[in-house]
């Protein structure tokens, strides 16, 4: 077990690591969560789609390992079969969940250092949906559990992350032991995973935190893009919007935590990230997000 406190002058990292990690470059996840009985709040087409989005969210920050997905898995889940199953059930391999909302197993070899299996089982006796924002109350009372944020947390364990707050670290992280209103990966979560599996060179400089990944749709002509940059390596953060040309740069405010209210044009706005460093005025970060304005 390892907890890390960053030594940089402006940023303190609190992520904690389990003792094990994957030695393969692909972690194959067999998704068998099935379809939901009604529409999910965040628009995900199915439980599998929500979980797949959580996996993709982790993927975008990792250089040396990637989750790959087998959708609608027909594999019969079994414990100890070296297959990573993700599914709902009313028991955990035949045993009552008790207080558990979700359980992820950690199978290892080589003195506990190498991961060989990680099944995640969600407790189907509880009320679930997939949504963003603050935790909600279920119609019958109690918590309406958000599969997406619990999946982000559990898949963080699958990668090898532990709870930073269990080690006295006070950081904002979805990997903290209390899962509440934080619904997305935080810089500390990302740095922790990158410490295990590396990041592309530019991702060590800066990355987006809003939108998290892929594409977001808005009805407003402006969208506030947010992210994080390494304050030691980065002086300024800039963004481009394809709809305004690739040579027009919009300067974000802040560095460690940066943001920019970006103007949009109707349609598909491809937003790219650049940073200036002490040695280069414009370094393109290997990441982009798409903000769709209007229909």
């Amino acid at each position, binding site marked *: 077990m390892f907890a890390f406190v960053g030594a940089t002058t402006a940023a303190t990292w609190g992520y904690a690591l389990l003792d094990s990690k994957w030695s393969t470059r692909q972690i194959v996840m067999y998704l068998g969560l099935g379809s939901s009985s009604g529409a999910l709040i965040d628009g995900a087409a199915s439980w599998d789609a929500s979980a797949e989005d959580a996996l993709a969210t982790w993927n975008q920050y990792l250089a040396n390992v990637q989750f790959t997905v087998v959708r609608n898995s027909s594999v019969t889940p079994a414990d*100890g079969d070296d297959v990573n199953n993700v599914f709902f059930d009313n028991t955990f391999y035949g*045993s009552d969940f008790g207080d558990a909302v979700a359980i992820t*197993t950690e199978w290892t070899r080589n003195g506990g250092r190498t991961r060989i299996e990680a099944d995640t089982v969600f407790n189907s006796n509880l009320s679930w949906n997939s949504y963003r924002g603050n935790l909600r109350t279920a119609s019958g009372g109690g918590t309406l559990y958000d599969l997406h944020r619990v999946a982000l947390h559990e898949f963080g*364990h699958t990668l090898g992350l532990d709870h930073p707050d269990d080690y006295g670290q006070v950081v904002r992280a979805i990997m903290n032991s*209390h899962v509440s209103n934080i619904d997305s990966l935080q810089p500390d979560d990302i740095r922790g995973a990158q410490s295990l599996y590396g990041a592309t060179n530019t991702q060590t400089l800066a990355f987006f935190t809003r939108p998290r990944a892929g594409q977001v749709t808005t009805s407003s002509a402006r969208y506030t893009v947010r992210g994080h940059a390494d304050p030691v390596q980065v002086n300024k953060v800039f963004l481009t919007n394809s709809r305004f040309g690739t040579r027009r740069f919009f300067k974000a405010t802040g560095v460690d935590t940066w943001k920019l209210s970006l103007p949009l044009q109707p349609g598909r706005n491809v937003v790219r990230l650049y940073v200036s460093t002490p040695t280069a005025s414009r370094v393109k970060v290997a990441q982009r997000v798409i903000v769709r304005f209007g229909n």
Partner: protein
Amino acid sequence: MIRWCFFLLLVAATASATTLQSITEDEQIQRAQTIFRGRAEQVDTAREATSHGNPIVTTVRFTPLAVYKGTASGLVTLRFLGGKVGDVEMKVGGMPQFHVGGEYILFVSADGNRVCPVVGWSEGSLKVDRQTNSAGEVKASPEVAGAAEVGVQPRSRHVLPAGTSALLPDFERRLKARISEIGKQP
């Protein structure tokens, strides 16, 4: 001899991959059928063939030393999922950890087929340390020991907050009083 046999879990270390419902101290007491202090006499780990795969199972046998709620006598056997067999190890976050000769206060569920037979998982298994104080000191793990919880607010009251300790006589007195108060509630 009362013997409980529970299926599932144990984790040898503080692995972290379980998310729990947030429960209060009173709920933890209410959900426990038996609360007792006992000494771990034997810890056995083996791989089992079941209809759900081949999990590693650890069986722990306790001699009850004091019973605060319910009944317990003879050897109490609890079975947990997880452990280490050869070079293969299976961990489930939040599982309590036991050592032969160790003394623990356990909040045991009524359900004999639970993933974790201890209510509150690692929070329902408190180590009693007699090295620093012969009267005994009840210690909660400095870590929550691997389990996360989901809820708008963190638990406002734990039986013993993570990382803290209490003298055994004081803890027992408070626990018994709380059990008595809860028992009087309609």
